């Protein structure tokens, strides 16, 4: 085992991780550990834009943006966090421009802005042009720009290092409470284990979309950061709130940005009807995602779906000028051509909701400090981006607010972690901190026969798609829970064929599957207990929002892994405990959510 020591270790090199690194590397000795090369991170897949009330093209202000965020999240947003995000949005966009991001421009040469779902003028009056964008590859440009600036600043990266465990230790200096001591990582190229001692650790590992089958998320988005923290006894917040994006390419899940509708695209059913007029008369196709996704699923259920199996609806861009499509939506129209053989100039595109975004995650406060219960933090531990839950997205994230989130809270995490590391004492690493990781890997690698990773994963993903997607019921979820619990058992027998050290992705897929199973259970348990419908969580047996009983964040805990567990013992727990945390309401009282 190799050992390293840094003031700050950042886990993940997507938008959140690199934005944090740009802050912390100038202030403290920083390493970024990432399982992918930084520019492969899924931030690069983001298309539509990043909202900020710049008022470059029409009147706007950050308070309206805050309101939209709170309302879009179905009021379970922590309003202090939303205020910070929307206020700092303006600086976040300008910072990116100064770093070199090539935004689309207005005729005056300012940053151009366009409409996006749920973003409105003056508390819902009409759609407002708030999203700053670079064609339909805004995320790509953010990821590239942040990486370029990391190169400029000489940020130190450990590429293709998988962090598999977080080391916490009770620390005298921190009043005997658990504090960060470091992380354990696996080097893909060699199979070697590395222990990184650090005063501060920032989790920035992104989302967990692979819990579902149909998803816009990358194969590598397996919720590692959430799983690692959870196994060490830290809570996960609001994991039942998962966003299903309305317009995934039918059957594939590849995303077609909401920008397509922002630019004038229209959803139609088999009768050619613009059905969103019935569900959201004011802003129609630009209603928030949960509403559009459910409306689409409902059209299909009521027999107005298209195609041979009547199982999708159509996104119609045919009334837009081809030149306009090429200028504003070049990438996504190419996806339609490449993967479905559909020409968007002349043919409508088959679309269906796709699992897109985890609103929940590792709970933090507005300084990105990770909470270990409703009020206390873990000294030295930070989280930002999709892995975290601040919570600015509540029950449903507005489009463009995640690229914003990763920039605002990534920056805050980097500053806070570096500052903490400057003042804090080192926490002693416990003896053999790598033992859990070694056991985990050797258990899997050492098995001669058993079940294939892919079979378990397929069962998990298909079950989640069928039972825990846009429509949920007690019955469907009880069924899902049973499957997930069987999978925990079956995971004990999972086997890999690759027994080597070099680039053993077979082994790592097995480890990632463990995180997916762990998280799926938390999603289902949280969703079962939340007997109401709110944002992305829709219960057919409880169709109304219930503020009296459920205007609270879910906090899920498990029995933490023991310090010296044995080989052969399940990494899962029988006991997931649900608790609840109050929502921080500042100025907006819950109202009915109508668009």
């Amino acid at each position, binding site marked *: 085992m190799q050992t390293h020591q840094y003031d700050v270790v950042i886990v993940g090199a997507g938008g959140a991780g690199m934005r944090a690194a740009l802050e912390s590397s100038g202030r403290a000795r920083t390493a970024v550990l990432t399982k992918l090369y930084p520019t492969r991170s899924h931030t690069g897949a983001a298309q539509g834009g990043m909202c900020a009330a710049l008022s470059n093209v029409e009147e706007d202000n950050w308070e309206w943006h805050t309101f939209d965020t709170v309302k879009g999240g179905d009021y379970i947003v922590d309003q202090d966090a939303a205020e910070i995000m929307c206020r700092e949005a303006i600086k976040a966009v300008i910072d990116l421009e100064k770093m070199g991001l090539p935004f689309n421009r207005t005729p005056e040469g300012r940053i151009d802005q366009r409409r996006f779902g749920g973003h409105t003028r003056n508390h819902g009056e009409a759609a407002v042009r708030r999203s700053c964008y670079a064609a339909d590859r805004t995320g790509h440009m953010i990821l590239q720009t942040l990486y370029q600036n990391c190169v400029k600043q000489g940020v130190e990266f450990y590429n293709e290092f998988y962090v598999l465990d977080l080391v916490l230790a009770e620390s005298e200096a921190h009043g005997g409470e658990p504090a960060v001591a470091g992380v354990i990582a696996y080097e893909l190229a060699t199979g070697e284990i590395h222990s990184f001692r650090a005063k501060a650790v920032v989790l920035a590992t992104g989302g967990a979309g692979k819990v579902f089958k149909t998803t816009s998320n*990358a194969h590598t988005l397996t919720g590692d950061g959430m799983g690692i923290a959870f196994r060490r006894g830290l809570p996960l917040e609001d994991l039942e709130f998962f966003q299903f994006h309305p317009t995934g390419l039918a059957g594939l899940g590849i995303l077609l940005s909401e920008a397509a509708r922002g630019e004038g695209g229209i959803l139609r059913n088999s009768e050619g009807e613009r059905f969103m007029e019935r569900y959201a008369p004011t802003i129609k196709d630009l209603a928030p995602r949960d509403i559009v996704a459910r409306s689409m699923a409902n059209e299909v259920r009521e027999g107005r779906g298209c195609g041979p199996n009547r199982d999708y609806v159509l996104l119609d861009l045919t009334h837009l000028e081809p030149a306009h499509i090429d200028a504003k939506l070049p990438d996504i129209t190419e996806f339609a051509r490449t993967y479905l053989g559909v020409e968007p100039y002349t043919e409508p595109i088959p679309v269906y909701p796709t699992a897109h975004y985890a609103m929940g995650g590792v709970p933090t406060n507005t300084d990105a400090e990770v909470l270990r219960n409703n009020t206390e933090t873990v000294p030295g531990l930070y989280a930002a981006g999709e892995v975290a839950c601040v919570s600015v997205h509540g029950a449903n994230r507005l489009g463009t607010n995640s690229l914003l989130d990763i920039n605002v809270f990534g920056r805050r995490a980097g500053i806070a972690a570096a500052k903490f590391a400057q003042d804090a004492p080192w926490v002693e690493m416990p003896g053999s901190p790598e033992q859990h990781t070694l056991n985990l890997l050797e258990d899997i690698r050492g098995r001669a026969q058993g079940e294939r990773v892919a079979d378990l994963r397929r069962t998990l993903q298909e079950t989640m798609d069928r039972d825990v997607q846009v429509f949920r019921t007690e019955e469907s979820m009880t069924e899902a829970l049973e499957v997930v619990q069987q999978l925990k058992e079956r995971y004990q027998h999972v086997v890999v064929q690759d027994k080597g050290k070099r680039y053993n992705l077979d082994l790592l897929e097995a480890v990632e599957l463990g995180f997916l199973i762990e998280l799926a259970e938390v999603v289902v348990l949280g969703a079962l207990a939340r007997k109401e419908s709110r944002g992305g969580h829709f219960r057919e047996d409880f169709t109304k929002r219930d503020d009296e009983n459920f205007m609270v964040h879910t906090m899920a805990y498990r029995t933490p892994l023991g310090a010296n567990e044995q080989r052969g013992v399940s990494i899962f727990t029988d006991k997931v405990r649900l608790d609840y945390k109050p929502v921080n309401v500042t100025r907006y009282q819950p109202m009915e959510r109508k668009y």
Partner: protein
Amino acid sequence: MSVDAPSKKPIAEAVEVPTFQITLRIERYNPEFDTESHYEDYEVTVHGTDRVLDALHTIKWDMDGSLSFRRSCAHGVCGSDAMRINGKNRLACKTLVKDVNPDKPITIEPIKGLPVEKDLIVDMEPFFDSYREIMPFLVTTGHEPTHERIQSQADKDRFDDTTKCILCAACTSSCPVFWNDGQYFGPAAIVNAHRFIFDSRDEAGDQRLQILNDKEGVWRCRTVFNCTEACPRGIEVTKAIAEVKRAIITRRV
């Protein structure tokens, strides 16, 4: 433009997609066990709309878990899975099986010119080293404006094409000059230099041109056009290189 009128177009009736058998002939190499590489054939059932990446996954997940390749996004935006498919550099996730003549065995090999680490995985460090050498970041001097810098859409359009690069190395590893001359920067690095040289906000164009004017720089390019043909983002790589060459000669961007 009447937005609300129902579409006159007939509703797309997707035809039932056929499934068929293909053979993938994959170059395998694991230095832990092998002294040299060899080819292995795999028979796979694919659907009409499957990508080569789907076929590779079928092998890895259901047949031979030791087959190793990089991938992440699965739709051509992360740059992980450039490989040689029937001798051409392609992203496996952006190449449909039906488009590469599935009647004959499809050959899959790692990209050329970078050391093979295992199966389809190559060492990307030399590639990123060249990239880092051309100062791939905006350089400005003087006062920071309080708002954004002003840039006309026309000025932005001058380098728009080269901002699309996903650093997949398909171009660089398709370049015969790069195969034979380990010192050549390669097209991808020049594309990324172009992205900054032609950005009206940038002030380090001269330095970059200097770097590229050096012996291993842009002049090694013999305009073979492999790179443009290989680029999965449709970047006009050869054109970008030509623009950089011209800028060096005229010292004007």
